[in-house]
């Protein structure tokens, strides 16, 4: 039933599925809550629904003020009235991912077996497929038979690929942006630094930090700082900060010296206020486990065999975390099964984060692709 649950201090709109969800790891979550946001109006035929899948540290607040941070939605440039994903035409849905900390069942939710206690590190390992199955329950709950489009960047793009592979008949168009069909060794390595930083924080208390009334803020901040470097390009950091000094009068070994240092520290400290460390561990692990072809005998095209979905793949030329080669590999796999695929690499010096930023070429491409698909789908 629809309800509003209290999670930390913020209320999130959510639905609880009492039948729960069986996960890839074999464990069963007894009761699954999915927190969500929607924009626009579902047409009577229920054919204009677009599901947005958020990235690692994103949430369901795509195009509205985030109640936890007070900041604008993370994709307001892309989703909204008159935007490329036009909420005047489409009914836009976003759910907080399974394992998240914004209202959907995750490590901060109540433990199935020990009521009154959060899951913490007992929370079962989840996969991208599990996240998608949770979203599918919600889409079924809305009685939407077929999504007009599923769109997402980074980990959101992984979910888009999983949607297209698991439920091809329910996805008319799929747009994985700055995505990959598997997490590379380098990506896993960066995640591991973050996880180790969290584990090394004395406030982590083996994941049961709530019992001590603390959070592993320093570890989580370092994790975010490391990750943030991977989201931007060298060119963007140079353009923004170069070697500019913060305060030339006070040079010390530990205080910030370079502007880029205080920028990173700001990124870290603002993140710890809104994100749960155990969620971070759970979700980074889900990304690391992602390898779409592994479920199909190591043959990526088999994941899309017989697909009728129309694909748009977008990469950014300065993205070294999910480089163009990864998107091209997906495009070629889709060619193998003669799928309908559009593929563009957008020029930008902003790195992986470009998908979240003001990139007019990307926005034009997305808008045009959706308009073309709407024509083919008979939506007008």
């Amino acid at each position, binding site marked *: 039933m629809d309800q509003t649950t209290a999670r930390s201090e913020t209320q999130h709109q959510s639905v609880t599925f009492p039948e729960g969800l069986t996960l890839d790891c074999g464990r069963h979550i007894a009761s699954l809550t999915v927190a969500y946001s929607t924009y626009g109006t579902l047409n009577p035929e229920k054919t204009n629904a677009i599901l947005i899948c958020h990235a690692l540290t994103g949430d369901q607040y795509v195009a509205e003020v985030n109640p936890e941070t007070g900041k604008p939605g993370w994709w307001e440039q892309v989703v909204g009235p008159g935007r490329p994903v036009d909420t005047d035409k489409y009914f836009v849905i976003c759910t907080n991912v399974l394992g998240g900390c914004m209202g959907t069942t995750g490590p901060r939710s109540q433990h199935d077996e020990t009521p009154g206690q959060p899951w913490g590190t007992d929370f079962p390992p989840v996969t991208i497929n599990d996240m998608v199955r949770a979203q599918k329950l919600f889409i079924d709950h809305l009685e939407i038979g077929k999504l007009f489009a599923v769109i997402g960047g980074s980990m959101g793009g992984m979910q888009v690929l999983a949607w297209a592979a698991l439920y091809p008949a329910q996805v008319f168009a799929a747009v994985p942006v700055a995505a990959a069909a598997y997490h590379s060794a380098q990506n896993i390595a960066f995640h591991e630094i973050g996880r180790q930083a969290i584990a090394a924080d004395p406030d982590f208390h083996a994941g049961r930090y709530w019992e001590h009334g603390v959070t592993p803020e320093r570890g989580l901040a370092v994790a975010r700082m490391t990750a943030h470097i991977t989201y931007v390009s060298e060119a963007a950091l140079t353009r923004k900060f170069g070697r500019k000094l913060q305060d030339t009068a006070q040079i010390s070994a530990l205080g910030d010296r370079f502007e880029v240092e205080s920028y990173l520290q700001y990124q870290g400290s603002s993140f710890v206020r809104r994100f749960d460390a155990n969620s971070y561990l759970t979700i980074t692990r889900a990304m690391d486990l992602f390898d779409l072809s592994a479920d199909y005998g190591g043959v990526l095209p088999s994941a899309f065999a017989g697909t009728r979905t*129309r694909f*748009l*793949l977008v990469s950014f030329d300065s993205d070294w975390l999910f480089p163009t080669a990864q998107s091209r590999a997906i*495009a*070629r*796999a889709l*060619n*193998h*099964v*003669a799928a*309908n*695929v*559009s*593929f*563009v*690499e*957008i*020029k930008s010096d902003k790195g992986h984060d470009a998908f979240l930023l003001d990139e007019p*070429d990307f926005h*034009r*491409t997305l*808008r*045009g*692709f959706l*308009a*073309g*698909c709407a*024509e083919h789908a008979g939506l007008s």
Partner: protein
Amino acid sequence: MRVDLALIAGMIAAKTRVLDIGCSDGTLIDHLFRNLQCDARGLEIDMATVTLAVAHGLPVMQGDADTDLASYPDGAFDYVVLSRTLQAVEKPREVLRQMLRIGTHAIISFPNFGHWTLRLQLLFTGRMPMTKNWSRMWYETPNIHPCTIRDFFDLCAADGYIVEEWLAADEAGARAPWRRWPALANLFGEQGLFLLRKA
């Protein structure tokens, strides 16, 4: 639409699957979808042009005829089109082989290097000919594999492709009247247009 594209469209049956290699802004695939209800897709090497085409709602992917055709399955299309691009690819023979592997038919147009103005220029000036079609100096032209209409007939014969239809056209694409005489077409046609299938 360019006249040569209209000629190509005239060779394509309605409601078929078409891949247009070197589709540029996607004019042909747009026409094939709107007027012939084809499932038409494009492959284009220039990223800015691809972005433009996709932003117009057309299914186009960035890719290279020399390397990307190998990823398509056998018989994925009814027609594979390559217009004014054969002379610019690295391995024209291989591209042609791939086209007829992934498609039942191949439609190829190319500027004819056997045209009389080129022959005369080479004869009288002793230098690489320069015309509207062949407008770049030899050291910077992207057209690294020029051929004549006769050469193309020879390649089709050598590789066992059946020429179902062919014609020569002038620069604007208007059909030239030398349907029955390849030697005359080779002298007076500015471009050749071929519809091939495998034997």
